[in-house]
């Protein structure tokens, strides 16, 4: 049964069927082949339950939050402040790319929104200060991936829903890896620019007065972060409610910057609904598929099959990492997660790993998926903003950062406490 299921899934996906249709047809097919009873009668009830789920409401709201922030002018302020504090380092504004991405990520749950926003603001600096364009745009594409690691995070919400893991715990677990990954990215830029100073552009000087005067510009982002994340841990709001508060805060901020208009909101809603419709159809199909898979006992069959392979727990994790890195080259990370996590998460928890830790590992692998060619959404987004040259520049420029991500994944496997320490300390 396992080879049939996996074979069919890959066949349907390789045929280029929409992911949602591939999942639903796989579920119907497996049901026809293996099940004595017709499970498809349950499809209405299952899709209603999954598509009216209270936790999942936060997904479109976070997409909307990102779409509004993208148009709100918040990024210019973040970038201005970050460049004054960080551009003295060898590598100059490339550190501002990482720093501003990190700060924007703390307000946005989406990596694509982060990359789009930062590349619009940072892009014009390449020629102005004579940076190496490949490394510069590579740092924007890579910095953007922080969007889904640093809370809030759409991917962590979906992971929490798929595995019944606490979203506040997952958020807490994302903080330190997010900060550490930013430092690793910056360290790579620093190292490269120390070896090859010509890649690091013209030095930009800022005075301490400038720096301190720029601090208030960080306030709008901080305000959104406090509203969205603070409200959860202060016990004021659930993760879903905090997403609603975030949308309102972002609208207020956009109004404050004079950017709130009917046209702007319509554009934000259109973008939001395009992603929401796409994701929710996948969610409904995946939920039906999971139901069929568990009714057929496929997950436990897979569990015993893997058990029979006699892999060590670490061996299992390494195999999974390799599979995800390869899948991520070709698949949209969110679709990849929804398709695979219901199968891999039970394997990993049975092997004795913490589901919160696994959630962070999966998000790091999703980040890699965003920047590994041939299909990497952040690469396309950065190239889309740049509008000249070829995408090869960005694919080459991002290579050092892909290596950083792989190193970060290694660190997380070696030292699980990077993710688990904060949730443990704070829940005591």
């Amino acid at each position, binding site marked *: 049964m396992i080879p049939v299921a996996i074979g069919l899934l890959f066949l349907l996906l*390789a*045929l*280029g*069927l*929409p*992911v*949602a*249709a*591939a999942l*639903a*047809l796989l579920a*119907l097919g497996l049901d026809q082949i293996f099940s004595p009873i017709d499970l*498809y*009668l349950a*499809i*209405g*009830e299952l*899709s*209603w339950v999954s*598509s*009216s789920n209270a936790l999942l*409401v936060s997904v*479109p709201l976070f997409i*909307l939050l990102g779409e509004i922030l*993208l*148009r709100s002018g918040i990024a*210019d302020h973040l970038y201005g402040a970050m460049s004054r504090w960080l551009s003295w380092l060898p590598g100059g504004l490339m550190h501002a790319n990482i720093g501003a991405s990190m700060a924007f990520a703390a307000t946005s749950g989406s990596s694509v*929104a982060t990359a789009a926003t930062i590349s*619009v*603001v940072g892009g014009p600096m390449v020629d102005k200060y004579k940076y190496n364009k490949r490394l510069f745009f590579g740092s924007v594409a890579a910095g953007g991936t922080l969007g889904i690691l640093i809370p809030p995070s759409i991917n962590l919400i979906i992971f929490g829903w798929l595995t019944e893991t606490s979203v506040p715990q997952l958020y807490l677990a994302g903080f330190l890896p997010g900060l550490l990954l930013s430092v690793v990215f910056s360290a790579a830029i620093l190292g490269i620019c120390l070896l090859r100073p010509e890649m690091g552009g013209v030095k930009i000087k800022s005075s301490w007065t400038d720096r301190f005067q720029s601090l208030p510009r960080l306030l709008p982002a901080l305000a959104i972060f406090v509203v969205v994340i603070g*409200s959860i841990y202060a016990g*004021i709001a659930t993760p*879903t*409610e905090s*997403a*609603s*508060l975030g*949308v*309102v805060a972002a609208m207020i901020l956009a109004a404050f910057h004079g*950017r709130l208009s009917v046209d702007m*909101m319509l*554009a934000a*809603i*259109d*973008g939001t*609904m*395009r*992603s929401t*419709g*796409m994701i*929710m159809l996948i969610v*409904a199909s995946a939920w039906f598929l999971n139901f069929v898979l568990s009714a057929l006992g496929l997950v436990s069959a897979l569990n015993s099959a893997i058990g029979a392979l006699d892999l060590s727990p670490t061996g299992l994790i390494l195999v999974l990492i390799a599979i995800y890195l390869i899948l991520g080259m*070709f*698949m949209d990370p969110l*679709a990849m997660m929804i398709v695979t996590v219901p199968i891999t998460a039970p394997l990993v928890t049975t092997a004795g790993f913490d589901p919160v830790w696994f959630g962070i590992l999966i998000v790091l692998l999703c980040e890699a998926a965003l920047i590994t060619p041939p*299909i990497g*959404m952040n690469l396309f*987004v950065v190239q*889309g903003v740049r*509008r000249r040259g070829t995408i090869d520049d960005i694919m080459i420029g991002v290579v050092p950062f892909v290596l950083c991500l792989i190193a970060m994944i290694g660190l997380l496997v070696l030292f699980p406490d990077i993710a688990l320490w904060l949730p443990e300390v704070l829940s005591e």
Partner: protein
Amino acid sequence: MTLETTLRRFSLLLSRIGGGMLLATALLVSAEVLLRKSRIVVFSFGTELSTYALAVGASWAFAHVVFERAHVRVDVVSQRLPNRPRACFDIVAVASLALVGLVLTFGAWGTFASSLSYGTTSNTTLATPLMIPQGMWLFGIAWFTFIAIYRTMGASLAFVRHDLAEVSRIAAPPSAEDKATEVASGARSRAETQS
């Protein structure tokens, strides 16, 4: 106005109404949280309504997503094929959405019909008659199915006429570059209004 434009505009309108519902519940839930915190009035039906807004709003967006060809596909294989087989893959892809839509409509009809005949209400203070949100949800799924069938027929007829460009316009995924350019233009338009 051609049939296609009418259907496309109506689908966009549905999607916007769905988005409006989600935005409205976000405002309602925010008000709820603030009032709860200040202990002025305590009411809590925003979360329940937001779950209906999600189910209904998402299903009302499905058809527009078909027009936008944004139901995500893994097209690594089909992209590398010559024009004619690639057009076949594209038609199969949109047809598969129509097929899944039919199954979903059938399932959603069952759920709606049983809520209707038993008069099921939600187990909350609102006691929402579930046939209302489920009926709206069913409508979105049925409309999506209709649009997916309409697009499948359009693409198939074009294929029979050997009009491969038309097949591609209806059913091929926009290239990743196109999608990215759209995201980028959203961010850029904001930068340009500023300068």
